[in-house]
């Protein structure tokens, strides 16, 4: 009995350490972002600000035009995640329900594409889009993110669809509905958590993408949040409280999405979708 108690205490300590290590960096960057500029550069470090101030955020959204970047990021992530979800549900559905000759091959293609990092193909994408005169547009990155999103969205959709019993659909098929109608009237309503997790997954990936965006988007009015952060680094004279505020703004939406969809994302992840 005594041993059990010791184990319990050790476990609580272990869990506590993991929690502190996971949360501390985020708390610290937030504390830095609400410090007055004069209290950021001190050593030994001043832990708590003498007063909380939002001057860094005010600077971001007025002088540094983060309102524009935030809006751009939001448009890019939402639109590409929307299209990706729509496309991948259709493809995932067909790939789980229809048997045809190149099915396995197509699935393997998706697995391979899912492993391709964005930076690796950004150069040919850039030359292609520059021929179409589409570089430095939000459209270009939306199309690119939708390509990646559709690939791993389809893999995720397959994982969810495999667990869905087919009996209900078969009844609808016999009633004369076609595949598309069955998907939207029968399958998707049953699969809302899955749909939500595909969407959040694509949203998060598009929101976070930095390398293609830096190459493609260079005018101020087209930049997304990661591009703005990137340009901060090379800009001399950026205060760390402003930088910290920018980081908080970059992280916040994905934290919100994660906390809303965490359960389903975890489900999708463990059921065979593989983006690490």
């Amino acid at each position: 009995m005594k041993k059990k108690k010791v184990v319990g205490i050790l476990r609580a300590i272990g869990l506590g350490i993991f929690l502190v290590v996971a949360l501390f960096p985020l708390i610290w960057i937030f504390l830095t972002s609400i410090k007055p500029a004069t209290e950021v550069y001190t050593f030994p470090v001043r832990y708590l600000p003498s007063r909380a101030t939002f001057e860094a955020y005010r600077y971001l959204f007025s002088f540094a035009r983060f309102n524009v970047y935030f809006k751009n990021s939001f448009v890019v992530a939402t639109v590409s995640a929307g299209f990706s979800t729509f496309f991948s549900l259709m493809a995932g559905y067909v790939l789980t329900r229809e048997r045809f000759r190149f099915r396995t091959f197509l699935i393997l293609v998706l697995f391979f594409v899912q492993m391709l990092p964005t930076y690796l193909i950004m150069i040919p994408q850039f030359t292609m889009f520059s021929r179409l005169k589409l570089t430095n547009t939000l459209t270009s990155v939306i199309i690119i993110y939708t390509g990646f999103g559709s690939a791993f969205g389809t893999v995720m959709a397959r994982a969810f669809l495999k667990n869905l019993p087919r009996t209900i659909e078969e009844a609808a098929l016999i009633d004369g509905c076609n595949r598309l109608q069955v998907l939207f009237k029968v399958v998707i309503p049953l699969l809302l958590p899955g749909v939500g997790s595909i969407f959040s997954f694509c949203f998060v990936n598009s929101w976070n993408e930095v390398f293609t965006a830096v190459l493609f988007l260079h005018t101020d009015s087209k930049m997304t949040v990661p591009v703005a952060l990137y340009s901060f680094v090379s800009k001399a004279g950026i205060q760390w409280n402003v930088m910290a505020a920018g980081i908080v703004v970059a992280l916040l939406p994905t934290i919100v999405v994660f906390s809303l969809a965490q359960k389903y994302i975890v489900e999708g992840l463990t059921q065979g979708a593989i983006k690490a």
Partner: protein
Amino acid sequence: MKRSKLWILMLVPTFALVFFVNLYPLVRGGVISFQRLTVFNLNNPRFIGWNNYRTILSDPAFPRLLWNTFVWIACSVTFQFLFGLILALLLAKPFFGRGLYMGLVFYPWALSGFAIGLLWSWLLNGQFGIVNDVLIRLGLLRTPIGFLSDERFAMFSVILVNVWYGIPFFAIMLLAAIQSIPNELYEAAQIDGAGFFRKLFSVTLPYIRPTIYSTVLLRIIWVMNFPDIIYGMTRGGPAGATNILSVQMINIVYYRNNFGLASALGMIITAILTIFAVIYLALLERGEFEL
């Protein structure tokens, strides 16, 4: 007849996009790797044979690039796995508030690697960083360390952050596998008088072996192609101390604007990636783990 056409149409958007946005550019990248192509001659590239590859491979810094990439992958994945496993084991039995706890501990997984790199570069700052501050207060250090500016510590620092970032993914995958282990196995082990470590090595780990294989392999591929954290912290510096293949490729694009040269390096990376991908898919085929 009508139906059979419709399902083909449903595949078109995804595969048309995947073809034009992912697969065709990959092939195009192969062509560009044999060209002299920079930002300034985008419309009239010139074929120069294997020159770009020669430049990459004969660079005296190339062996170090490979070595750094190896160290980055090996250390990151090993420690991500170990800490992820420990966290998964701690979470295996239910306790009050476990759902909330998991949400709080797993959140780094969804965050931007680049922003995380920037964030940690502030925590590890050589002059005003909280990590130096705490180490000095604890008496472990006398003067601050330049975690990112000192060649001896830079690689250690970026790996540390990558481990921090990667623990949730491993924990999530391993926890799901651990929870699928039938309880009877533990009960039987209990009756046999097995202790914690005996159970871990004779029941838990053998049972979740397929998950370990697939997760580690995927993670190797992914970490190799994950320049985000390094780019947020050091961009490969100081003096190439944290430069890995992927970071170098991006540096060639951004700073030297040499698309041909970068594409040659990209093809080398793609070749390595393909080897790992084939291993992964072959294991899938053999049924080592499930698709």
